[in-house]
């Protein structure tokens, strides 16, 4: 069963309050050297057969991510 992971991240120029807050928390936890942090989401999809790459890309762009503020990345696991 092929598995696909779609990672959705805020675009680099978009304000990410969650990322800023998370960076601060990690620094407070004593982790040194924390720079910029971005928080996105990871969506794991199990397929019964190999998905249509173009359709998958379309769904990732228009449904799983919001193209106005987010980028996405598709990773197919064997």
């Amino acid at each position, binding site marked *: 069963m092929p598995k696909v992971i779609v990672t959705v991240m805020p675009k680099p120029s978009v304000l990410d*309050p*969650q990322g*800023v*807050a*998370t960076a601060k*928390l990690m620094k407070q*936890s004593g982790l040194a050297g924390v720079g910029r942090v971005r*928080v996105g989401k990871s969506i794991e999809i199990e397929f019964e057969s190999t998905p249509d790459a173009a359709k998958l890309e379309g769904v990732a762009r228009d449904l799983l991510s919001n193209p106005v503020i987010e980028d996405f990345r598709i990773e197919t696991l064997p």
Partner: protein
Amino acid sequence: MKVGVVRFPGSNCDQDCVVALSQFPGMSAEILWHKEDTVAGFDAIILPGGFSYGDYLRCGVSARFSPVMGAVKDFAAAGGPVLGVCNGFQILCESGLLPGALVRNRDLRFICEHTHLRVERTDTPFTRAASSGQILRIPIAHGEGCYFADNDTLRDLREHGQVLLRYSDERGYLSQETNPNGSRDNIAGICNRERNVFGLMPHPERACDPLLGSTDGRVIFQSLLS
């Protein structure tokens, strides 16, 4: 009785708690700034509702780093009464003072409405002025108020009588329809095993004035006072 209401950055029910508590003769309430590292001089502590530190990452998680929470933990360990409302309940769970976690509501939307609650136990400093099985009409307002705990924890809570409030209908019956957010076991509020730390999602401070439609929240503060 002097109650400290903690103000985290992003708290927004702190002033409401002060207003509601001030109606009770014999009770005074003061704001406690989150950068304070002591709660000396207070007889009870309230962690109010709101979005502490913006509630980014997870609700209630950031408060664990605030100086005042160290003092609140010591206060609770020494048996002092600590009440967490809404975001305060989330903070109590995230900082380990109460078991379980609060996750997104079943229908994924924020819900603000009146609910009916059945009082399950009256042997605590927060419910002793109520009668067992009493129905309280108190509003909720949250996006992440679905109480979750694993089966062992739930069994533990029940065995030790730690479930203090459950979402019910106006006659006290429990069902999925009376459960606004999908909480396990219709749980609206729990206490710790020592019974001095109480967290609930509904807002008793919003049900203390007849002009707002209910005064059923008073029983919680009355209990604290008696």
